[in-house]
């Protein structure tokens, strides 16, 4: 008897909860219904899609996409942005021996708004993270990130340090990793060729 009583009480409390829930749901339902009504009423006035025009659109897309991809692969502008040691090899990458210009990675730009590739060269400290994030957000789409060197890929020799982020991939989406401490300029060259393949195959 006692148990039944308890069950009854529980059921009653549940039903009370449900009641309140239903009330809220009904109010939201009403809103949704109203919206549907409005949309349905408006749909009468919408222009029907033009068959001829849609096909043209598709055609243009089909033709333009390879051209856009080709243009993107062959004019990757890296950002002039170095953090630590690997920036020395980054400078060598743009200098006389490994002439980066001949493959289209020309012109290290000072502002993120003109750049496609961000090369994280060096260790990333906790105080630097918000600034790197902000620079990344200022870049125009599509944008790519290369983690250059041990420190940028996983923290490297500063793994035990209290002020280092263990890899830039905790903060930004990384496309290509380059290992080495520091990697040679040729390795960056190879990484950019890999990135070009990635863009060509549709990323």
């Amino acid at each position, binding site marked *: 008897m006692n148990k039944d009583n308890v069950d009854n009480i529980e059921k009653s409390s549940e039903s009370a909860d449900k009641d309140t829930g239903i009330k809220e749901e009904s109010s939201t339902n009403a809103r949704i219904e109203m919206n549907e009504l409005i949309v349905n009423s408006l749909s009468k006035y919408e222009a029907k899609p033009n068959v001829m025009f849609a096909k043209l659109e598709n055609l243009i897309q089909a033709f333009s996409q390879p051209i856009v991809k080709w243009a993107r692969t062959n004019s990757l502008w890296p950002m002039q942005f170095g953090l630590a040691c690997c920036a020395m090899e980054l400078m060598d990458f743009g200098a006389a021996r490994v002439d980066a210009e001949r493959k289209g990675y020309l012109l290290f730009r000072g502002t993120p708004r003109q750049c496609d590739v961000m090369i994280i060269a060096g260790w990333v400290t906790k105080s630097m993270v918000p600034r790197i994030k902000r620079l990344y957000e200022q870049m125009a789409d599509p944008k790519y990130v290369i983690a250059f060197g041990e420190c940028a890929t996983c923290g490297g020799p*500063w793994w035990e340090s209290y002020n280092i982020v263990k890899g830039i991939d905790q903060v930004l989406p990384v496309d290509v990793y380059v290992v080495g401490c520091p990697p040679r300029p040729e390795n960056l060259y190879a990484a950019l060729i890999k990135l070009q393949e990635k863009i060509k195959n549709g990323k």
Partner: protein
Amino acid sequence: MPTMRINVGPVHPSTHGVLRLIVDVDGDTIKKVEPHIGFLHRGVEKLSETRMYMQNVSYYNKLDYVAPLSWEDLYVGAVESVMGIEVKEQAQYIRIIMLEFQRIANHLLWLGTFCNDLGQMFTEFMWTFRERDKILKFFERVTGQRMFYNYMRLGGIRKPVPSNFNDDAYNLIEYLYKNISEYTKVLDANNIFKERLKGVGILSAEDAIEYGVSGPVLRASGVYEDVRKSHPYYAYNKINFHVPLKAEGDSFARYQVRYEEMFQSIKIIRDALMAMPGGDAVGMPVKLIIPPAKNNIIIERRELPKGEGLLYIVPDKQKPYRISIRAPAFTNLAVLPKLAEGAKYADLFAILGSLDIVMAEIDR
């Protein structure tokens, strides 16, 4: 006119590192410059307390990534004096040769980026990097690495030098002498270059001593101080060379001092190659159990390319108990607010560039 506050950086204002400058300007004249540092701090001094002596070497060559071998040498030299180990005679000369090559490489990189700062003088950048790459190639042949060599060992160097070491070094200094002499055609004969630097950022000798600057910045202000002469280490007292001095104290004098220093380094390398004795230069292997510390507290000084570096070590049995670093770039940066006050905003980077700072050394 009300003062305007400009925020420069912290992303590579002049390709020297991650430095943030807060500049108050009145029109085009600088009222106040406030450098904010610490964007590359990773706690080298604390980290090196957790490792054994020779494991720390790879932390110390990352302090100044423009001239890694110099810091490596300073650290290993300090550990040697903690242990009471003497450097083998041939190793002393090899170290001198490598360190002077490193000094030239540092000054070349500085000159290239400095000219880049002064308004895209890109030719000079390409030229200096061409020469620097030759030096790195030589280092790669000798040490096996391109930038972080890990070459110094207690009492000597890691491995014996290759058989054609002398010929390679001779050819290289010949090449460097020929090419570095060419720079005057582009720089000293260039009116834009001269007028952007002459009379900009004048540092008097008294101020230089008060602020504690060292290296080429101090010598450009007319103070004769070089650790290689005042406290000679290795075989520097057996080699004849002179320390370039300038009295003007402006940015142009700093350029001239560094430019002269490259030729002096070439001379030192030539003399050291001629005087180098035969024998064995290989130091103690790392795997060997390290002898216990003999001395209590050690202060070791070296003339680094950027100025005077100093290490203070309180040794424990197998690890250092405490290490303190005196980085030359830190004190050289401290002069910037003094030099930039009253200058034009466009001159700020001519002054900053001429101080030759590297941020990893400042933030540690």
